[in-house]
């Protein structure tokens, strides 16, 4: 099945950390979703026109399909989502974007802040050896314990209150993390660091980008990023994050 708009139902919602929420929803879209893809989530308040693009944290076929999003309250729209209770309806469009390519190599998964959630489903589906590197502001962490059953977990915090003091690259170096492929999602400065690290160490890297979006399906050209070469679709050095990404080979894009 292709991407579609659906009214899903909230299975459960819980607060994971300050301003970070986890919501499981029941939807048939779950069975088509792959890690790295995202959903457009619509608010009920119709003065808010645009859907919120939120990455898929987990997806499986249980109970006719269920999907988990873990999101940060960034404004009034996501605040509305955080108030949804079990049984509430939520309009979603998905699955959107391309997702991470699954490689049979020792993997390094890197998540920073609200870029951590898509790494969970990826960690589940990567069958080989892997290290999961998570970056947080401080020891008020989320999802870190859920990664433990899928691989070795390494943590970096900005304030040093847990794990390595510094960023995810500092943690990778301190713990001598190695691998043949890197998967990363997080803020742009972090992705810039990952891209540089991957280049220096000749490791293939796939990074998930974000930008303000409107349509979410590749029509409006709102959410472009700079591409290294002229893009085949746009015919300029721009790629659509929603449709050509959000996951790119790090060599394809300029940050």
């Amino acid at each position, binding site marked *: 099945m292709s991407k579609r*708009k659906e009214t899903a139902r909230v299975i459960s919602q819980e607060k994971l950390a300050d301003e970070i929420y986890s919501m499981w929803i029941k939807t048939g879209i779950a069975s088509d979703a792959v890690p790295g893809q995202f959903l457009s989530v619509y608010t009920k308040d119709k003065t808010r*026109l645009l859907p919120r693009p939120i990455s898929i944290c987990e997806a499986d076929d249980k109970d006719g399909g269920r999907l988990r999003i873990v999101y940060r309250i960034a404004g009034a729209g996501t605040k509305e989502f955080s108030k949804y209770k079990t049984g509430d309806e939520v309009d979603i469009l998905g699955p959107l974007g391309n997702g991470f390519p699954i490689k049979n190599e020792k993997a390094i998964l890197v998540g920073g802040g609200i870029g951590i959630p898509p790494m969970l489903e990826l960690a589940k589906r990567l069958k080989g050896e892997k290290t999961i590197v998570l970056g947080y502001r401080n020891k008020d962490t989320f999802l870190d314990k859920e990664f433990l059953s899928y691989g070795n977990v390494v943590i970096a915090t900005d304030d040093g209150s847990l794990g390595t003091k510094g960023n995810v690259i500092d943690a990778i170096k301190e713990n001598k993390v190695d691998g043949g492929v890197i998967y990363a999602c997080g803020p742009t400065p972090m992705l810039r660091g990952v891209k540089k690290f991957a280049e220096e160490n000749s490791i293939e890297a796939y990074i998930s980008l974000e930008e303000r979006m409107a349509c979410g399906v590749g029509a409006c*050209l*709102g959410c*472009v990023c700079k591409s290294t070469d002229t893009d085949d*679709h746009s*015919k300029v050095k721009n790629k659509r994050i929603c449709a050509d990404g959000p996951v790119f080979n790090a060599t394809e894009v300029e940050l």
Partner: protein
Amino acid sequence: MSDAVMTVNIAGVEFKNPVMVGSGTFGSGMEYSEFVDLNKLGAVVTKGVANVPWLGNPTPRVVETCGGMLNAIGLQNPGIDTFIERDLEFLKDYDTKVIVNVCGKTVEDYLEVVERLSDKAVDMLEINVSCPNVKEGAIAFGQKADALFNITEQIKKHAAQPVIMKLSPNVTDIAEMAKAAEAAGADAISLINTLTAMKIDIHKRTFALANKTGGLSGPAIKPVAVRMVYQAAQAVKIPVIGMGGIANAEDALEFIMAGATAVAVGAMNFHNPYTTQEVIDGIHDYMIKYGVKDIRELTGCVKQV
């Protein structure tokens, strides 16, 4: 649907219904064809295309505002060569009318695109002289009546298809602009393009858009758009295509009653990809409910009590 005729005619082109899409909100239909049966639409109006590829503006290019959104895409487009090879080739397979939106930095740019399209499967041209997000061309031709007259006249000399001039709402007197387009030979006018607007991110103390300003669209602008469509329709005899925040059939009917022969769904495609189909169905339901035999009975029917 024989009991409620929804076909409309603009400059000799017959549309199966009066519902189109707003340029720039629908690509060339490819992405939305996963949600919408393009064969059901009155027309697909493509995103603006220039003679060569355009990079567009830096990001952020879009931001939400109350009841609407700002965009400053800057008319990123792949250029006419790719557009002809890929987008027009894609649209060939659909039984809908194709209106190509044309943009340019100079009059020559516009004329080049218009001429390249002269022997192509294109039903009408919509000339974008109203994009507020590019520094050269576009709106420079659309804010002064004499400039609008001049470019319309030039395009009419070179165009093989009927020409729609897309008007900007960022003017003092919309009736004067509508009249200038008509006097220069335009076959129809469409309005409104977006309203120049601004949003400030108070947390970062920056402009929300990299371009500082952007074009406001969505339901927030609908009453302004209805007023302008009414004033334009009063001023000219050529058909008017109305748009600006149409979210449902009721909105579309307001535009039609204000004087629009056809309407376009724009930003609301982002909110609900099925909006066009819902508008078409809703207009039909209204016609059945009120015993309207032909949509043309409603065009410009508004009157004072």
